[in-house]
């Protein structure tokens, strides 16, 4: 049986956070007695990721996504439980481990600010001990894939956010990591740039068989790239499975978008009207009722167009969090 690329068992991370009220009195009191509280950022999560798999790690701000990625990449020591990546304990930060992974964080600059990115790439070559011919081949491949040939010669400080993100990614992948942790790689980028980065990640994984773990607030990233998602909230896993399965498990409904020729009247008899835009009406119907309602609409209305869809992933995720809050 193949060893998982990432194996996590009962992983937990607790931060001790100093805490005090506002004001001079509280500050003075803090001189004598410090108050701290424990924050369980990650609370006993378990999962495995197979080599070559690409997994979306979803959750609202403060859910524990980035903390998990930082533990898996060796930046943070774990409080409890166990993590193994490519057979290594990440917090030991063994050279052989660090040479085989990469953590890319959106909005985080790791290149030399004042110099062209090519100089930083050269530095990475020496840090990762990449033989020159391998380095040149990989560098040129990445530059071509991300179409940054004319950007890598400019000082990094003169690049736009999107351009910088692309050259950052080149720098982070020069050593051909086998496991890639991407933390909000498309944050702040326009839609065209987001799409370009998504296509690149898919292509990199296809070419090099890399395992990818991705966090993003853009559902388009997740839908385009991830067959499997792990949903985390308050440090606990709420769902782990394929994206379609998430919708099936959580949302027991589908949407029917229907355009009616004779002017859409009241269609509430068919289902919950959740949106109306001229002749286009969007209905929410129970999953088991979808076929029957569709047939009724076609028989009883002057239907010009009709689409049956799973609910948008944003809605599904929202539903997961809402359900957890109630439970």
């Amino acid at each position, binding site marked *: 049986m193949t060893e998982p690329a990432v194996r996590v068992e009962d992983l937990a991370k607790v*931060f001790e956070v100093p805490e005090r009220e506002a004001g001079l009195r509280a500050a003075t009191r803090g001189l004598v007695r410090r108050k701290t509280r424990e924050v369980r950022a990650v609370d006993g999560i378990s999962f495995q990721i*197979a*080599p*070559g*798999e690409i997994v979306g790690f979803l959750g609202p701000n403060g859910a524990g996504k980035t903390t998990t990625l*930082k533990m898996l*990449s*060796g*930046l*943070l*020591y774990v409080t409890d439980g166990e993590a193994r990546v490519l057979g290594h304990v990440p917090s030991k*930060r063994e*050279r*052989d481990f*660090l*040479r*085989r*992974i*990469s*953590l890319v*964080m959106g*909005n*985080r600059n*790791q290149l*030399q600010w*004042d*110099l062209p990115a090519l*100089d*930083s790439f*050269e*530095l990475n*070559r*020496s*840090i*990762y*001990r*990449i*033989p020159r011919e*391998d380095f040149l081949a990989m560098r040129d491949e990445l530059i071509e894939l991300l179409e940054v040939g004319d950007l890598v010669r400019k*000082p990094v400080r003169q690049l736009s956010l999107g351009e910088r993100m692309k050259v950052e990614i080149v720098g982070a992948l020069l*050593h*051909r990591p*086998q496991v890639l942790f991407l933390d909000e790689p498309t944050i702040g980028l326009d839609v065209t740039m987001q799409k370009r980065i998504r296509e690149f990640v898919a292509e990199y*994984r*296809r*070419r*090099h*068989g*890399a395992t990818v773990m991705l966090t993003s607030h853009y559902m388009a990233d997740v839908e385009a790239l991830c067959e499997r998602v792990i949903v985390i909230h308050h440090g606990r896993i709420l769902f782990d499975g394929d994206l379609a399965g998430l919708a099936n498990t959580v949302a027991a409904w589908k949407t029917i978008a229907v355009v009616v020729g004779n002017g859409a009247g009241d269609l509430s008899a068919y289902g919950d009207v959740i949106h109306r835009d001229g002749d286009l009406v969007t209905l929410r119907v129970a999953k088991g009722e979808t076929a029957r309602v569709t047939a009724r609409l076609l028989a009883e209305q002057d239907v010009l167009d009709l689409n049956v869809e799973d609910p948008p992933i944003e809605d599904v995720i929202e539903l997961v969090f809402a359900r957890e809050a109630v439970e």
Partner: protein
Amino acid sequence: MSTLPAVSPPRQEGRLRSLGDFYVTTMRTQIQAQFQYRAATYMYLLGMVAEPVIYLVVWSTIADQSGGTVGGLTAGQFAAYYIVWTLVRTMNIVFTPYGWEWRIREGELSGQLLRPLHPIHYDIAGFAGEKIPWLLYYLPIAVVLTLVFDPTFDVRPVEIVVFAVAIWGAYLIRTFNQSALGLVTFWTTRVGALFSLYIVLELLLAGRLVPLTLLPGWAQALSWLLPFRWTFYFPIETLVGDLSNAELVVGLGMQVLWTVVGIGIFSLVWRRAIRRYTAVGN
């Protein structure tokens, strides 16, 4: 997943060879960065010259008014001391505890921890690279100071060789001392007060404020037991003083000793400190 190509670990160069390669590449990168901001660097260097020039003017005046010498040093010897002082000071600039504080507080350390090389290597190589343009900028300053203050030099070839080694020894001792201090940030978040104390001790016991021969006997004896003397006074004395070959060897030996002690303390603190890293800021 079965359609994906089989992954083989990337090839890698030998460790020692690539460490050398890393140092050369980093130094080259830093030289380029320094040349990028040559005007700002020059202004910085000129600002740094102010400190020894003040000392020089004060002590030369006192020497002149005291019949030509103070504590056995002539005005020309004071001039030589502070001109070499400027070079030593330029060459022993290191990544300070404030740098560590910023790096830890802002989460900048994360990027370095993700790489398969200890962050201290970046600091050593980076600051070593910066010294090459600084040395070039220093030369015209030294010429001007020499013309104005007329220093007295009596240097043997062996002293020049020892000086060339000793300024790097001084650099390493200060690097490890100040980096170990910087790691205190992992516990205290701010390290400024501790660093100020360090600087006071260095000013007094390194020969940074005045040549150590002007200090009381007990202070001179104390300076022998602490690392500061070997980061300023010893390298300066190799060119300015009248050290015997045996004293030169002892000085270099003390530098090796304090470098090893510095590495030991830094490594010990690092192992405990890194467990506390919270990678905030990113």
